[in-house]
């Protein structure tokens, strides 16, 4: 097998790669800024320089030439090479800063250059704490600077577009943002303007950077030049708790990280998953943090009469639910599942109502024609449409007609704003007892007689099936009134969460929502109705789903965690719903 020697260590490889990528894959650190594994290689930051050489091959003797010590003779390139653009070859010798003073010096020199016109305003910079320039300067940079002149001044606070703000002085001209727009989102909206040390990225005059993927440039910016207009100055990253999750604003199943502080989701960033979204996510998904924080239903709500509603206790809500359900026949109840809710919630909903004799559970897909593209946006606006298809839910082509039937007395709706997206009308719901299990206040909850607050994707562990048939799960990122970070190992714990006290700025109980997972609500109701429905964890429900439905065979939380989501077998319609 071909081999390469990095700092004297022999490593084998199968396919030649670029040296930098090979090193990163083998956990060997090398400083760099402009290189990004998903983008083209411009080699413009000049930070990943290494000494590189190849052995001298004697064609006549058919062997490598040896020096006086019997070692292979190495012909080094006359200049330092950028590892990012250097192709590996058999027997190549690489010397990094670990073994070469020349490389060490070059890295220091380059950082000195980068920093002379960099504002060094880390204390007020959003990137601080997750800034490659900051980290690498501490590791590889010079102790001070010999530059004692005025720095070059460039425009600050430029609104490049609705979601991205540029500080041109911080820019180190790595062109990652430009390459992202050219190669990934293909909007070609950014370019570098001006020349030399006055360079900075900009749009064409009069144009906006309104690319639907624009905020990805903020993520890949190796300094604080591009910042998210929304997240700017809201939080320091070292105060945030990072929890893996799924983008719930469309059906693609984009992998994300939820960044919380004091039980508020502060921002959402993409999480690398080469099977789904690579390093990227759509801007729309980042806005979803508002859904998790704002306008939440906290505590059950019950209608007194007419337009008057009031908050009530869980006890009262459960009793009311039990009363309503037990006083009606099965065919008087219309149960509507939701592509917006998780597999577990939908499964328990259908299982509960099956037990009391309601056999068909309906749903309407949430489709917006033309909203999708061929990348990370889909026409389907819900994260779990395929999942509830797999659960045998019946797609209703006309909910309004079903509702208009006088037979229906009770409507139970699992977290779906049917009114807001005009799947039903207010008139159709008139005269029925409407029970909503909802995360957020909406037209739907206003029109409901009983509102049960349920956990959102940021508060529970639950699984969703993407449009491409990949089952992935979320982790609880923010606490509810009934959960506790310190005893739930599924929840992420930031430094502030672990060591913060009530005297800290960002520690309080006020952002905890009084809600429970929808499945837990039905478990509690079953207890009161003497039905056999007993679960303590959502992973138990997943285990049951995987044994009940062939398509979910072998799926478990453990496997999803291990494999970063599991691709379900692509089954034919008949195999999914065996007659």
């Amino acid at each position, binding site marked *: 097998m071909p081999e390469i020697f990095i700092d004297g260590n022999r490593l084998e490889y199968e396919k030649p790669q670029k040296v930098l990528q090979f090193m990163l894959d083998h956990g060997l650190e090398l400083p760099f800024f402009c290189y990004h594994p998903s983008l083209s290689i411009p*080699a*413009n930051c000049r930070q990943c320089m290494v000494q590189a050489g190849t052995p001298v091959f004697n064609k006549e003797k058919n062997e490598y030439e040896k020096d006086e010590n019997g070692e292979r003779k190495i012909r080094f390139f006359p200049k330092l090479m950028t590892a990012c653009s250097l192709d590996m070859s058999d027997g190549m010798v690489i010397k990094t800063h670990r073994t070469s003073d020349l490389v060490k010096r070059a890295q220091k020199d*380059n950082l000195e*250059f980068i920093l002379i*016109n960099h504002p060094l305003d880390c204390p007020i910079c959003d990137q601080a704490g997750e800034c490659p320039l900051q980290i690498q300067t501490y590791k590889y940079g010079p102790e001070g600077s010999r530059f004692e*002149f005025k720095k070059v001044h460039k425009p600050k606070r430029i609104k490049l577009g609705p979601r991205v703000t540029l500080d041109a002085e911080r820019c180190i*001209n790595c062109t990652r943002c430009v390459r992202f727009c050219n190669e990934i989102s293909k909007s070609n909206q950014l*370019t570098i303007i001006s020349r030399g040390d*006055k360079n900075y990225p900009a749009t064409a005059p009069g144009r906006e950077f309104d690319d639907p993927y624009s905020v990805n440039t903020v993520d890949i910016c190796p300094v604080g030049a591009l910042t998210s207009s929304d997240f700017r100055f809201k939080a320091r990253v070292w105060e945030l708790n990072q929890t893996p999750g799924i983008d719930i604003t469309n059906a693609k199943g984009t992998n994300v990280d939820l960044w919380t502080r004091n039980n508020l989701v502060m921002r959402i960033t993409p999480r690398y998953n080469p099977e789904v979204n690579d390093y990227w996510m759509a801007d729309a998904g980042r806005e979803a943090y508002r859904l998790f924080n704002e306008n939440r239903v906290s505590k059950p709500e019950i209608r007194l009469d007419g337009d008057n509603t009031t908050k009530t206790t869980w006890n009262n809500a459960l009793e009311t639910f039990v009363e309503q359900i037990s006083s009606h026949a099965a065919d008087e109840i219309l149960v509507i599942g939701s592509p917006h809710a998780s597999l577990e919630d939908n499964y328990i909903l259908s299982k509960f109502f099956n037990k009391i004799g309601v056999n068909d559970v309906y749903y309407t897909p949430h489709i917006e024609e033309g909203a999708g593209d061929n990348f990370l946006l889909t026409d389907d606006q819900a994260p779990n449409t395929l999942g509830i298809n797999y659960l045998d839910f019946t797609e209703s082509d006309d909910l309004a007609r079903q509702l208009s039937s006088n037979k229906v007395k009770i409507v139970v709706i699992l977290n779906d704003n049917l009114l807001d997206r005009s799947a039903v009308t207010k008139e159709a719901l008139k005269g029925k007892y409407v029970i909503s299990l909802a995360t957020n206040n909406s037209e739907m909850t206003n029109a409901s007689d009983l509102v049960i607050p349920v956990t959102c994707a940021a508060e529970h562990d639950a699984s969703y099936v993407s449009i491409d048939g990949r089952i992935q799960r979320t982790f609880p990122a923010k606490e509810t009134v009934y959960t506790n970070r310190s005893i739930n190992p599924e929840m992420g714990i930031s430094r502030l969460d672990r060591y913060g006290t009530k005297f800290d700025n960002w520690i309080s109980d006020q952002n905890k929502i009084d809600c429970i997972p929808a499945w837990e609500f039905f478990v509690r109701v079953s207890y009161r109705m003497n039905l056999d429905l007993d679960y303590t964890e959502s992973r138990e429900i997943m285990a049951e789903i995987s044994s009940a439905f062939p398509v979910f065979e072998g799926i478990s939380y453990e496997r999803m965690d291990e494999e970063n989501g599991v691709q379900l077998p692509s089954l034919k319609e008949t195999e999914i719903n065996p007659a």
Partner: protein
Amino acid sequence: MSMDWKSYKPLLLPNIKNLHQIDVYEKNGGYDSLKDVLKNKDGKWAKDNVTNEVKSAGLRGRGGAGFNTGLKWSFMPKPDGGPRYIAANGDESEPGTFKDRQIFEYNPHLFIEGAVIAAYAMTVNAVYVYIRGEYRSWIQKLQNAVDEAYKKGYLGKNILGSGVDIDLYLHSGAGAYICGEESSLMESLEGKRGYPRLKPPFPAQKGLWGRPTTINNIETLSNVPFIIKNGADWYSNLGAAKHPGPVLYGISGHVNKPGVYEFPTGMPIMTLINEVAGGVRNGKKVKAVVPGGSSTPVLRADQLEGLTMDAESLREAGSMMGTAGLCVLDEDTDMIDFLWRITHFYHHESCGQCTPCREGTGWLEKLLLKIKNGEGEYRDLDILLDLCTQMEGRTICALADAAAWPVRYTISRFRDEFEARCKKTIYATA
């Protein structure tokens, strides 16, 4: 060879009136080489033979790097039916260089003829001429010549009935020095921002629009017709042995008769200054000479004795032939001012792609401005030399080198002057 320079008959810019008109050019043997080549394209002048002739003539690129032209042509891969290009580099933005525009003005057909022969030799159907945008009137002049050549059938489809199709297009630059660098010239031609490209791949593998491309200087291509006409042996005996051929010396600076003069390579520098260019102004002494455009290391007067203008001799003396644009500085020249102006130029023209050049060129200028203003300290000289080390060879293209060399060599060759300027400050403030 320098003995008979006075009897030398110019080849690139012969003293013939109205040579830029195609009739006059033809009357004086113009396009004969092309006719000869195309007539014998299945025999004596098969494509490889043309390339080999140019290679053995020893023609070296006139754009600065001095690479063997025929060798460069031979790097072009075998034709695969797809498009292939020649980009003729007439960007000519190196300070102290003004030779190509003489060709555009006085002998444009020589260049066109050379370009067509080169295109034939490399199986190229399209030649792009990248001309400095500021050369408004020269662009017009060359365009007129191109139009004439099309009319007479030296360009276009089925040239002279030979079945060879070659088109020639003009493209004017937009004022950036960096677009004279061959790979950013290609980016610029493609309509992109003039950032130099990473090599490899080299232009012969992946050039314009990802296709095989050869980039040659205007003057280089203009040498081709008389190599064909008179043969490689004749050509390689012109001038210096390892760097043969006629050269357009652009002499500027403190001389009595600045201008472009054509002589073979290997001319003694002192002869060029004192006899060709009429000596230093006001009878002053030479202090220094920049031999080949602003980026070539400056030479002190005491280094000039016996020095000839060819790659080998200049390399031994610690400089380069570059574009043969000599800039003569007299004894009154302030070397600090001179160096500051050069660093100002490179600071202004750095494209800003690579960190060392983007940041280094500006820092160099700021330090030199400080010294120029009498505020310099000794350690600033050390920082300047340090910065040169930090820039040299660490960027994609050679602009960082071009910016660092003048600083390194001007300081090392005139260090006493720089130190004197620094010292004064110390006395003044102490």
